[in-house]
């Protein structure tokens, strides 16, 4: 125990028990929250998620992230976002060419995996994180790109809020 010995030989001890109590509670809380989350993901830097009352937790790592300035597919930067939209040079028939190219590769991998497991290839599902300030035009472009690559179910990542 910490003690201070002085010339008059009086011993002063620091009571660290309250600190230990706080530490124990904090560690218990953090360990529980750590183990109860199936997926630990930090939203991309500078990306603000919309709030939602949903009770459905995140169960997969997001495949598509649309920040204020860039689009990522599986952490690879594939397109730019300028003024809330993708530049025309990176678009094709309303979709985003590079997003489609990346997703079609992902689709092929999923199909091969399903075949190897003796299952029928099925339509894909994607988790998407997107900045809340974007307009639906950009959401639509990303979704159309995914639709062309046969991904038809979207899990929109949100910041869970209580009522």
């Amino acid at each position, binding site marked *: *125990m910490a003690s201070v010995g002085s010339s008059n030989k009086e011993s002063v001890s620091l009571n*660290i028990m309250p600190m*230990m109590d706080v*530490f*124990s509670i*904090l*560690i218990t809380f*953090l*360990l529980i*929250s*750590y183990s109860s*989350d199936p*997926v*630990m*993901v*930090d*939203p991309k830097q500078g990306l603000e*998620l*919309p*709030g*939602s*009352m*949903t*009770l*459905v*937790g*995140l*169960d997969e790592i997001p495949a598509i992230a649309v920040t204020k300035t860039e689009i990522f597919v599986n952490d690879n930067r594939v397109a730019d976002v300028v003024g809330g939209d993708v530049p025309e040079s990176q678009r094709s*028939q*309303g*979709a985003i060419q590079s997003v489609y190219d990346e997703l079609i590769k992902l689709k092929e991998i999923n199909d091969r995996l399903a075949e190897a497991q003796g299952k029928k290839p099925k*339509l894909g599902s994607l*988790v998407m994180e*997107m*900045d*809340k*300030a*974007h*307009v*639906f*035009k*950009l*959401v*639509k472009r990303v*979704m*159309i790109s*995914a*639709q062309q690559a*046969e991904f*038809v*179910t*979207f*899990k*929109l*990542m*949100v*910041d*869970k809020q209580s*009522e």
Partner: protein
Amino acid sequence: MSVRKRKKRTTQEYEDAELNIMPFIDVFSVLNTFLLTSAAFVTLGVIKVQIPFFTNSEDQSKPTRTLEVKVDAQKDQIVLDTSYSMAPVQANKKTFPSDERGIASLHEALVRIRTDSKDTDLVTFYTDDDVTYEQVVKILDAIKLRKENDPVFSIDQKGDGNNAELIDRVFVFPKVVMGSVIL
């Protein structure tokens, strides 16, 4: 005599014994720092939606008279459209402002529709290009999620087995199709 002496010394040792909890505190501190730095203080969730997809396979199901529910989110208002797929169509249209109160009224209207038409569990959601993603998510919440005072709807979820009860407690309309996502 010697035995007595030994006993006395042992008792003395016990009296002075002190548990050294410093290594314990060290471990706690390191663990605490690690957990605090790696903890995610934003709780993440998901809202599941579908986008339309066209297939060449023939639809084998017999056409039945079902209620079609459409929500159209525009910049300043939200339009709720209901009609039956077969005559009598009984088309009905309601408009709500796109503020908090309007979204709450939309939710109440959807709960009423769901209460009256228990077999309908799908909403087609149309959105204008200039509506923000934040607003889209708010409207999706109003369409999909059951609030505390809402009735519990029984939803036939094939293959969801153990989750069926959870789905009943959580959703008003579990299926949402983003109707605007078409080339």
